[in-house]
């Protein structure tokens, strides 16, 4: 099968494609999410050291993985936008940033809720926690920098540079538990060794990760469609869209008091 990918490389052509893909990814997210919740809350056995508190792992680890993965994908899109001087990849980077920031916050908060009963502290300045906090600042910096520059194309370029420089932090987070003595436990899944956790726990964690992954794609597609509408609202292709034309005639500015 031959697909001409360049056909979809402009906002105008990608917008309808993103709209068709959206329900599938939301559907997959719900399916994996329900299966993942069932395995993690109903089937997975009690941890012999941490009791039932360990179940936080099923949201904490997937959220933390996604926070790092989204950053790398965001930086790759931003870099592609910079290299090709193209709008669509830059818009994709912009669409991923808030969801990445959200998963970073969730990883930090659920980690805190896990740390309190297990370590006796909500927060410690340990290498893993600190580098994850820096990831949050990088996401916030990327979003703030882009929204502070009025010209969208200049904002794309400035954001891309920040995103690319920040990539250095991701391996630091990932390897922090190896490189430094930390309170944080080691990697849950290791590429080289056989998994040490129960198979049911592993399956629960992978299902939850897949759910968050599918969710991320769906939400990024939803957001990139908003960004396209906002940034290209004066272009003809937006104004002749069915969903724009189908709206009744408007008399007031949206949000304005009548």
């Amino acid at each position, binding site marked *: 099968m031959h697909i001409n990918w360049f056909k979809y490389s402009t906002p105008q052509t990608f917008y309808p494609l993103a709209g068709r893909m959206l329900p599938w990814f939301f559907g997959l997210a719900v399916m994996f999410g329900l299966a993942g*919740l069932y395995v993690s*809350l*109903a*089937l*997975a*056995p*009690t941890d012999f050291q941490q*009791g*039932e*508190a360990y*179940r*936080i792992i099923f*949201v*904490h680890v997937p*959220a933390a993985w996604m926070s790092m993965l989204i950053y790398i994908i965001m930086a790759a899109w931003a870099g592609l936008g910079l290299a090709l001087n193209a709008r669509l990849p830059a818009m994709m980077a912009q669409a991923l940033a*808030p*969801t990445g920031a*959200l998963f970073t*916050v*969730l990883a930090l*908060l*659920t980690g805190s*809720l*896990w740390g*309190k*009963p297990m370590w006796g502290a909500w927060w410690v300045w340990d290498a893993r926690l600190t580098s994850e906090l820096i990831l949050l600042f990088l996401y916030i910096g990327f979003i703030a920098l882009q929204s502070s520059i009025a010209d969208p194309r200049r904002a794309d370029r400035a954001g891309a540079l920040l995103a690319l420089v920040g990539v250095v932090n991701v391996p630091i987070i990932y390897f922090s538990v190896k490189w430094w003595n930390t309170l944080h436990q080691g990697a849950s899944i290791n590429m080289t060794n056989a998994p040490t956790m129960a198979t049911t726990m592993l399956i629960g964690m992978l299902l939850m990760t897949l759910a968050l992954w599918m*969710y991320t794609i769906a*939400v990024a597609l*939803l*957001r990139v*469609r*908003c960004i396209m*509408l*906002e940034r290209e*609202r*004066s272009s003809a292709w*937006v*104004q*002749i*869209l069915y*969903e*724009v*034309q189908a*709206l009744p*005639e*408007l008399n007031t*500015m*949206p*949000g304005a008091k009548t």
Partner: protein
Amino acid sequence: MHWLNWADFFNMGGYAFYVWLSFGMSALSLSYEVIALRNRRRRALRLSRLLAQG
């Protein structure tokens, strides 16, 4: 199935606060993100409509 009854399930071995707050805030924030984006889309469409009608 791992649990004996519902009370057992909700109690989470005494860690109910930590476990349910973790799952709850994750579910709530993801739902909020989707709702916020739907509203953003509605606003963007209305503004485009306004520009389209000139």
